[in-house]
Structures are given as structure tokens and as C-alpha cells.
């Protein structure tokens, strides 16, 4: 095999391209249980030898912890990750209370405490898993709205009114967002939910995860993004929902891939590592990855920073003009990080002809982004969003451009906060990976290091994830997120996502303002 056998890119199986059924994914929520036997939960439930398999607990538990497959008498090991813990005892209807033999004991799961980090707490991980399994909001025993980072979105709260207006029905609340506001001759491109999936390159992430991201985007009329590793042919059936990225390495970017994309995203910078380009370590650069990128197998692939041909706003305009020349109907999005002059950058992006400014803050990034960059550079996204929103408003152009925020947006509550600060919509990345089993161990950069086979390109490990299951987890997650977003809007008395934009008056900061303080 030639190391740069680009001439004969492996053709996708015929059915990928031609079978429309394959691409047809719908929004139906179906249970998608975890793929590991012992899913981690907040509590652990112990069944002692005193158990006589009477089945009382099966009848009692509403959460599906206790299961006895019929017609057998034997109890299975408790699905304790579903247990809601002490809250249950308060109802007086807990299995521990009802067990005639006192055989059941519920306690905090010590392993759970070791899970997660300050930004993605164990509760946030578990609640995301719950959403991905059930398609609905997580139970109350999990803190599913904020993490414990001590800053950012975790310090912001909504001042909800005492009661929502009576005449506002949840069914009437609209969550769609228009992406093209320039009023030019290009399509408007509406997404049904106020988020789309972030760019992950073929090379960084399991192809089945990437395909699932594309499929859920199809199901929910939103987008996913190829990242900068090129455009795998297997995305072609979902092309209407796939943004392609043009990043500084220009890997896999060709006229035909650009023409295919409804939106072309220029990645100038990533919030997790501003001042650095993409970086794929050699271990992930397998023959398949190298083939798509047309690079040498096994070598580390660096993208430069910045674009070698864009050192100024007029270069940027020329760059946009070029892509417009290749694909005149595509929308143009510029992904930028949040330096102190991000407002100026955003205005420049607008005047150069872009439809979307995508600001990527520093809370995001997987384990592949170096900590030194991830934790020390750029403006916190919550400041950046509002600054840019204000600046664009003062310039009188706010309604001609779509402002997208990303970087550490984990929950619908984060999304709502970002939108209240001034974004039109958000981009999510890590949240989707958590839904399909990520435990945030941070070993993403190594080709075979991912404990859950998500951030891998290994030719065997990738098979651990099943496409249909993975897709369903994401479909469920999107459904849960939308329900929760509608719920937040309802509680705020707003009838649409658009009505929330820029409503900083609804927010308060834990450090500076008290809830209910005079405004």
C-alpha cells in the first residue's frame, strides 16, 4: 500500500451513498441502555444473602433498579445506577423499607466520587447518561444544571419568575434558529434546536461516533461538522447536515468537499488552544486517517497557526471570497477564539461577508488540548459572548449575523445562559461524547487510550461502539435537551429561543448579585 494512495480513495460501500433508508433517522425516543454491565451510578445497592427472591423490590422500585426476568425466580444484580438514593426513602416507598427481610442496603457509591472533574461533575456525567438512555430529563437527585467549576456558567443563575404566565403553553414554544441573517441570496438555513454538533475530525474520533453525530443532526434538522481531518465519503448521505471545516492544515479540503457543504466553517482558532493549530498525534494517524488527510502514516500532524494565507482582515475577506467562488450557495462561518479584542474580530468577520461568527471559549476541549493552553489563554466565554453581542448591537449589525457560542456548553441550562448573554445558538462537543459513554478521563490524544473507544481510530477498538445504539443515545439526548430547554423557556415565560437572546436582565452572578436583588 502506498502511503499516500490518494488517487484511489476507498469508495464507500454502495448502500452508504444510495440507500436513502440508511440515512433516514427519526427523532423517536427509544431506550438505549448503557453498553457496560455495571454502569456507574451515584448510589450502590447491595442485596445480601438474606434475600429470598420474593420480588417485593421489583414491585416497589419505580426506577427499574430491581429486575427479575420472567418466568424465573432469580433476581438479577440491581441496576443501581438508576437508584435515586435517599430521596426515595423520603417517600416511604423505598425498596430498603419494603424488603421483608432487610436484605437491601443503599449507600453512596464510592466510585462515583472519583468520577468527573470540577467542570464535568459526576452528577453532570450521570445525568447526561440518563438523558441518553431515556430521552428525558434526569431525576432530581442528580445536579444536572451546573457543575462545580467555581466560575463561568456555574456561577450564573437565572432569576426565574415565581410562576410562568398562564397562557404560555409548552407546545407553543419555538426552539428553531435561523443561521443566515444577511439577507443575501443564499439559503436561510434554519435549525430546529438552538445547537449543533461541533467539529471532530476523522482521525480524532471513532467513525461510528462521527456518523452518529451526522445522523442525529439529520434527525433533528441540525448540523454536525467534519472537523479538519477531511470529509469522509461515508458522510455523503448526510451532506445536507454536515458542515465542513476549513482549518489551517487544509487537510482533506477540496473543491468537491466544499461544494457539498451547506456551511463552510473557517477554523481560525479553537477556544481550547488559541494560538495553536490542530494537532493529531502519530498514534492516531492510522492508514485510514492518513489516506483521508493524504499524509504519512504514523506521523504527528500539526496544523499551523494561523492560516498561512490569512494574516489580516482583508486576507480573511479574500479567503471568504475564494470559498464563495467555489461554492456560492454555502453559508460561511468563522470559528474564532476569544482574545480580548474578540469584538473587533467579530465585526471584521461580518464585514468580510460571513454569516456566522462562532466564538469558541476556553472551557471546552478534550484531553487532546494541552492544559497549558486550555486553562490559561483567552477570555472566558460568558464575557466574550456579551461583549460581542453588545458590540455588534452598537454597530447596528447584530441582526445581520448569527452569533454562535461554544466551549464548555454542557447542558440546556448552559445553552440558555449563553443565549441570554447574547448568542443565537451554541455548539456542543463534549456533551455528545459523554452521552455515548465518555467518562472524561482525558486520554483522548492517544490512539488506543480511550477507555470507551470514542476517541480512537484503532481498527479494532472502534467496533466496540455500535452505530445504531450510538445514534439512538444522541437522538435521546437531543430530545431530552430540547424538553429541558422548553422547560427553561417556559419557566422564564418566553415563547421562543429568539426571545431569550441578550436577556442578561434574567441572569445574576452568584458572586456579585443576590437573587432577587433590585434591578
Amino acid at each position, binding site marked *: 500500500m502506498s502511503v499516500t494512495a490518494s488517487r484511489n480513495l476507498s469508495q464507500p460501500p454502495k448502500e452508504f451513498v444510495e440507500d436513502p433508508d440508511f440515512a433516514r433517522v427519526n427523532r423517536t425516543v427509544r431506550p438505549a441502555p448503557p453498553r457496560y454491565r455495571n454502569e456507574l451510578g451515584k448510589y450502590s445497592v447491595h442485596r445480601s444473602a438474606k434475600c429470598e427472591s420474593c420480588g417485593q423490590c421489583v414491585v416497589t422500585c419505580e426506577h427499574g433498579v430491581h429486575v427479575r426476568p420472567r418466568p424465573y425466580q432469580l433476581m438479577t444484580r440491581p441496576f443501581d445506577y438508576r437508584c435515586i438514593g435517599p430521596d426515595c426513602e423520603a417517600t416511604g416507598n423505598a425498596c430498603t423499607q419494603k424488603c421483608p427481610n432487610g436484605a437491601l442496603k443503599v449507600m453512596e457509591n464510592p466510585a462515583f466520587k472519583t468520577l468527573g472533574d470540577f467542570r464535568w461533575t459526576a452528577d453532570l456525567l450521570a445525568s447526561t447518561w440518563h438523558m441518553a438512555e431515556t430521552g428525558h430529563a434526569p431525576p432530581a437527585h442528580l445536579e444536572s444544571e451546573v457543575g462545580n467549576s467555581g466560575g463561568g456558567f456555574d456561577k450564573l443563575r437565572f432569576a426565574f419568575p415565581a410562576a410562568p404566565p398562564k397562557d404560555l403553553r409548552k407546545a407553543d414554544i419555538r426552539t428553531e434558529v435561523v443561521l443566515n441573517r444577511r439577507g443575501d441570496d443564499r439559503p436561510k438555513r434554519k435549525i430546529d434546536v438552538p445547537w449543533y454538533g461541533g467539529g471532530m475530525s476523522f482521525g480524532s474520533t471513532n467513525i461510528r461516533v462521527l456518523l452518529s453525530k451526522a445522523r442525529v443532526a439529520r434527525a433533528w434538522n441540525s448540523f454536525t461538522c467534519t472537523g479538519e481531518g477531511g470529509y469522509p465519503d461515508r458522510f455523503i448521505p448526510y451532506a445536507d447536515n454536515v458542515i465542513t471545516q476549513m482549518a489551517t492544515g487544509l487537510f482533506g479540503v477540496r473543491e468537491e468537499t466544499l461544494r457539498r457543504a451547506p456551511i463552510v466553517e473557517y477554523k481560525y482558532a479553537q477556544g481550547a488552544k488559541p494560538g495553536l493549530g490542530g494537532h493529531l498525534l502519530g498514534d492516531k494517524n492510522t492508514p485510514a486517517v492518513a489516506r483521508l488527510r493524504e499524509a504519512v502514516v504514523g506521523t504527528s500532524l500539526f496544523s499551523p497557526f494561523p492560516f498561512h494565507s490569512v*494574516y489580516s482582515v482583508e486576507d480573511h475577506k479574500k479567503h471568504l471570497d475564494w470559498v464563495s467562488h467555489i461554492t456560492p450557495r454555502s453559508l460561511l462561518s468563522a470559528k474564532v477564539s476569544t482574545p480580548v479584542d474578540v469584538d473587533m474580530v467579530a465585526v471584521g468577520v461580518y464585514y468580510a461577508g460571513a454569516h456566522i461568527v462562532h466564538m469558541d471559549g476556553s472551557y471546552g476541549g478534550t484531553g487532546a488540548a494541552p492544559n497549558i493552553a486550555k486553562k490559561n489563554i483567552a477570555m472566558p466565554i460568558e464575557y466574550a459572548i456579551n461583549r460581542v453581542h453588545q458590540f455588534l448591537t452598537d454597530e447596528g449589525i447584530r441582526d445581520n449575523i448569527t452569533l454562535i457560542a461554544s466551549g464548555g456548553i454542557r447542558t440546556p441550562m448552559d445553552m440558555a445562559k449563553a443565549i441570554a448573554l447574547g448568542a443565537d445558538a451554541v455548539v456542543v462537543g463534549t456533551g455528545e461524547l459523554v452521552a455515548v459513554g465518555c467518562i472524561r478521563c482525558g486520554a483522548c490524544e492517544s490512539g488506543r487510550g480511550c477507555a470507551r473507544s470514542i476517541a480512537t481510530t484503532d481498527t479494532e477498538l472502534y467496533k466496540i461502539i455500535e452505530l445504531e445504539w450510538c445514534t439512538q443515545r444522541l437522538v435521546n439526548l437531543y430530545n431530552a435537551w430540547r424538553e429541558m430547554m422548553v422547560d427553561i423557556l417556559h419557566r422564564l415565560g418566553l415563547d421562543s429561543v429568539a426571545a431569550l437572546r441578550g436577556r442578561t436582565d434574567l441572569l445574576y452572578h452568584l458572586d456579585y448579585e443576590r437573587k432577587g436583588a433590585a434591578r
Partner: protein
Amino acid sequence: MIDRFNTIERGALERAEAIVRSRAALRPRGNWFVPSPEAEGGCGVTGFACTEAVGGRHIYEPSIQMRNRGNGKGGGIAACGLIPADLNVSREVLESHYILQVALLDPSAKGDIEQQFITPSFDVAEAYMVPTLDDHREVELLEVKPPDVARYFVRPKKAALERFRAEKGLEGLTATELEDEFVFQNSTRLNDVFYASGEMRGFVMSHAKNLIIMKIVGYAEAAVQYYRMHDTRAHVWIAHQRYPTKGRVWHPGGAHPFIGLNEALVHNGDFANYHATSEYLSIRNLFPKFMTDTEVSVLIFDLLNRVYKYPLEYIIEALAPTTEGDFDRLPEEKQRVYRQIQAVHVHASPDGPWFFIIARSLAEQKAFQLVGITDTAMLRPQVFALQEGAVSVGLVCSEKQAIDATLASLASEDSRITPLADRYWNARGGSATSGGSFMFTVSPKNGAAGDPTYRMVTTNKFGAAVTLPEGQLHCDLSKPYAVQGEAVTRAHKAAIAEAIEKNDVLDLYLILRGGVSALDYDGFRWLVDEVAARTQTDRPGLGIEALTLALDLRYPTGDKKRSSVLTIVRAGLDRIFEKQPLLRDDGGGVYRRITFETRELLRGPENGETTLLIDARGFTPEGETCDARVATRAWTLGWRRLIHYNSRGTRFHAAGFGPETEGLRVDCYDNPGDYLGSGMDGLEVYVHGNAQDQLCQIAKEGKLVVYGDVGQTFLYGAKGGVHYIMGNAAGRPLINAVGRPKAVINGTALDYLAESFMAGDPLTDGGFVVVNGIEFDEQGEVNPLKHPYPGSNLLSLASGGAVYIRDPEGAVVDEQLNGGVITSLTEADWRLIRPYLEENERLFDIRIKRDLLSVGGEERSPFDVYRKVMPKSMLHTSPNEEYE
């Protein structure tokens, strides 16, 4: 050395310190640093110097050509070396007085400003408001009314000057130095009181001797129109199109050019170390008022020039330090000085990208200077050009097309100037060869009575002159040529007829080529016309091809300037082009023509038509009405041969055709713009002349042939294709290229050639680049360059691909690499590159045996001539070994 310093240079240092001290009162109260409120990146910059004083209308053309590098929110021009009558003063006043120009943002400020800063300070020889159009809306795209500008011809009052000397402790200064400093500080205080204080009532636009600046909120050319400077003559003109990103700009305070004392500076780029450079200035009691890095730049320039008295060479060194291999190549004495400069002024060195064009009035010598300085990293585009003759013109610009637009504009008025330059080149920033800087100095010829006449000298940073061959003359194309006698015509007519009969392009080309040396200008012009006339109707393809060869190839031109020969040949081509029928016209033949006016009539080829000529005049550089868009539509409609001509920087030629475009051929004449061939996938594109920046980015398949130089980031991120460049590539060619692109560059590249190259193993269908390191002299002979690759970072951080370099002397050394290794050529390597060199020979007449393999007149083995540079990691292992 210390002793020497103490004895010789103490005086100079004390003088400098006295000036710095005298400025202490200029320090604002409180926090002096205000972060720049507007991000501003790129821009279009242009400038030219001419031995004749020419009207402002000639800066108009190049400015319009680079509109798309600005956004109409800031533009400006400077004119240096003015004509007294145009300004209503005597020559004596013009040469001895400072021209103080104050922009009155608030027209009522005039009285206050005069009362505080003019009347008490200056003797005013002449004063008036700069004439303007009655209504700024008469000027296209000028939305914000430019400020009224008051112009004063001033000299400091004796008493005020003496008081200033005594108060500030400036006894050590000469009279001129003192006057300069007085004017400078007076303006600084004026700006403080009437502008920076928040008043925003007025500011000093310029205060130089024999140099003026006009700037506006609008495109640069509008300044010429609004201030009615079409006919204002000057020897040096510079212009700037600004691209501030803040939307609402109401006054031109932040626009370029900025004034130092006797120099106006325009700048393309922005500093990463704006704060650090501002701090450097603040330590020396200089405080930027307009919050842009351009002002910082000119303040640094003025500081080094007027306070530290550095020669221009040292100023350039402080701004764009010589580094790496280039530093090593400097003579020891220079290294010693440069090391000191770099150490002392490290914080004055702007961290790019930047590119400066400076117009300087050398008042003492009554000379004028145009200086272009590129940064060490060469991140902004820049082209220099020179034309020498009865009138000499030196030009520097962001894009070559704007240079040609300037020359065309000048040529239309003065028949001694031709529309093409004699030489075009790029500067290698911070280099030991040119220092990345060239200057055109226009100075009065000695001994001339009355109004002086001028000569121009072109030098680089080190003072080495740029010279053109002696004894060659331009052709005066404004006059019709003389009727040729039968002695000339009969033989040629017969030969032409025979070549046409045989349909022999090469024969026809050789007739033309023979005519260049055998005939005089008139004869050659007749010959070209004759070829055009004989072919334009029945055999246009033959005529076009033969004339194109005469345009593309190098051959001796005898006593004729090549620029004139090319102009004549190009005019012949034009005769044929223009003779081809428009799409709506009747007429047979395989050629059809489309123009801006008839663009809507585009249809597919009919009745054996094959080739569409696209006249680019009137098309916009980008967007829906770009001629490249016509080309992509034409391809969809079935055209397979496209010719763009009369291009003036219109972009995206040979791009946007989509995948699988084998069978399409695109030819580009004149000045095709940026991004040519980017993304091409199968097509062939021929550029008959120099090409600009961003060529063939992400190119996938196909063929590019450039009969000239290419600009920056050629083949950035390319995946494939075969590329032949007759001349040089500018900075960063093949950067981040993957797959299997193949390129032959016959000249060299400025720097960063094939950085992060990832194109597999060339011996198994990977990519490579051949660098021949040769140049053509004015007689069309191939000569090796002094150094086949003078830059650094060759194949730096690459993981695949290779650079084959013609380097019989072993000039390329390990210090120029970063992760690469130099090896000798193997049989397999030679087998690989030979076919490409053969095609190179066929295209450019650069012969393998005669030109490439011979060293000092002796033929050598390719293994003694070529060397291979490859990534160290590929030296011993096959890259895919592990997986096989």
C-alpha cells in the same frame, strides 16, 4: 571599544538624551497607554517614485485597483517632492518651510489652534485652506465628509526657537535639528490639546518639508478627488487603503499615512507587540495619540533617524533584524554592529506581520526617497519594480497588478514611460542579501540651472545599487512606426507566409525572435503587426501561440529593453484577440470573445467553437461579477479552452470548476490575481507572466505553468498536481502540502520552502519540489544564482516529501534545515525527476544538459549537481513499514 565609545560617541549620545529629556513635558498625566480601539489588519499599500513630478491622478489608478484591500473606512495619500506653483508658493519657501497641515474636525477650531500653536510659534509665509470639491458626495463612495484642512508654510520664530533651546537644554543641536524638534514638539502638543484630550477638534495631518499627507474616511483615491489633487505634481506618491474593522468611523485620525517629521509611512499588517513598542517609546517620552501601530512605527522611525541619527541601514536593522543563517553570512564587522542594534532596540522591533512604505523628504539634500521595508517573517505581500530610461520610475506595492496599473497610468501621459517595468522582484526580509528593503532615491542632478532635473538611484538596505543592463532603450510607443522598406518586408512576409502555410508555431516564433535582434523598434513593431494581421482572421490560434511564446520565453533583446519588446508583442496579441467575434456576432472560427458588457450573452460552444476569450476589463476582482465566475459558467456550458486577458488583479482564475476537470485549459494573460488555480482538480492553467499570491492552494490534480514568478504561500495545503515555475516563488511555498504535489521552481524561494511537507515518499508516488536555483539574465542566458536557496527553514518539520535542489557547490548547509537531512541523489531519484525536468525544458527552454547539468561550462553528472533534502525521519525507514 569602551574607550572609543567614550571619546567619539559621547557627544552624539548626549545630544540624543537631551532631545529625549526635552520631551519629558509631553508625557500625559495618568495612564498613557490606551489599547487600540480598532483592530486593523491588512490593507493595500502602494507607492512610486519618479524622476518627473507627476500628478496625483497616477496614484489614483493603483488605489482603485486595491480597493478590495480596504473597506472605504480610511484611506490616505502622501506626496513628496512637490512643485512650488501647484502649492502657490515660491521654490525658496517650499524648500525652506515646513508645510504644516491641520485637519479641522471642528471648523471653528481654526482660530483657537492658530492662537495657541501657530501665531506664537511660527512665521507664516503662506496660509490657506486646502481647496476641496464643493460637495463630498460628488466623489464616488465617499460617505463621510473629509475635514477641512488648513495649510501653513511655516518656520519657527527666532525668539520662540531660542526660548525653546534654552528651556529644553538643547544647546547641542544644529539650527536645523532644533527647528525640526521644535516643529515636532509643537505638533505633539497641538494634538494633545485639540485631539487626544478628548476634544477631537483638530489634529496635525503633516508638518514636513516638501511633503504633504491627505487622509480621509473613504478610499484613498477619494482624497485625491476631494482635495483636488489630480494635477498636483510630486516625485514620490504613496497611498494606503485601510481596513479598520470598526464600523462607524467619523474622522480620519487613524488613517494612514502617518507623519514622523519629514517622512510619511503607510503600513500593511499589524503588530503583536503594539503594547511593548508603545512602552519602548514611552520610555523615550513619546506617546502615541492615535492608537494605531502605524503611528508607533513612524515614531520609532523618526526616533532612530532624528534622535539617534542612525543611517537608514541601521534603522531597518532595528525594525527588521537579520536572523539565523543570514546573520551568519554577514561580515564580522556588521555582525558586531547589528548585534548591538538588536540588543538595544529589541522592543522597537515590530513583531509582524508588517510591511512599510515610506515617503521621505531629504530636505538637506533636496532629495526625495521611497522606501519599502518588509518584516523578517515576510508575512505581507510585497512587490518591487523598476523602470529606467529617460524617465525612471521605482515602484513598491502589495500586488503586482497595481504596479502595472500605475505604469499604465503614467505611460498614458508620458510616452517615455512604458506600461511594463524592466524588473519586478520580491524582497527577502531580514536577509543578508538585500536586507528585505529597497529604496528609490530621487535627487537633483548636479549643475542644473533653473528648475532642477532629477535622477533616480535604486539601492538595497546595504546601499548596493540595483542596476539594469546598460545600453538598452525603451521604445516610444506613442508614435506610429515608420513604414518599412521592402528590404525588411519582403523576406519576412515570405517567411511568415511559409510558417502559416506549414502551421508551424515554432517557425513563426523564431521569425519574431529573430526580428527582435535583427530589426530596429519600428521594424519589430511592423513585424509583430504583420504576424497579427496575417493570422488574426484565418489562423488566430497560430498567431496567438507564436506571439505567446515570444511573450513567455527568454531570448536576447540586444539594445531593446525587454519591457518594450513585451509591450509590443502583447499589443500584437491584442490585435488578434480583439479581432475575434463576440458571442453575439456572426463569424466562424474556433474563437469567441466575451466582455463585461456582453457577459449576459454567455452560451455554450457551437459549430466547432473551442475557445472562449474573456476580456477581464470591467469585471470585479471577486464575487458574482468576477471574470472567474464567467469562466466557471462557461465550463459548465461546455467550453474547454478559456483565455483570460486584460486581467488587472481579478481573482480566482482556474478555480471553482469543481472536481474532475481534465480536458480544461485556462490561459491567463496580464495580471491575474490571487488564488489562481486554488483547488484545481484536473485542469491545466498557463500564466503568461508573473502570478500573484496564494496560487494553487489545496490543488488536487492538474498542471500549472507560470512563465514568471509566483507569490506567497504557493501550493499551501496542496494535495497534488504538477507545477512548473519559470522564476521564483516568494515565501512559504508548499507549506503543509500533502499527497503528491510535484513542482519545479527554476529560481528559488524566499523562505520556509516546504515547511511541514507531508507528501509521503516521492519515490512511491509522494510529492516533491525541484529547485533549480537559476535565473535568466537580460540576454536570456541561464545563470546559476549566487545561492540556490538563501533562506532558512528548508523542509522544516516535514514528515514526507523531498526537495531536490540544484546545488553543485554544496551551498545549502544543515543550518538551513530544521528536521531535514541533506543526502545525495540516487539513481531512483534521478529517474523520478528527470521527466519533470524534460517537461521543464520543453516549456521554458531551460535545457537539462546545457543549463542544468553544466557547471562552469562543463557538463557534470546529475549526482554531482543535484542534492536531495528529505525529512530525517524518512532516512532509514519506509514510513508505512509498521503497518505493512
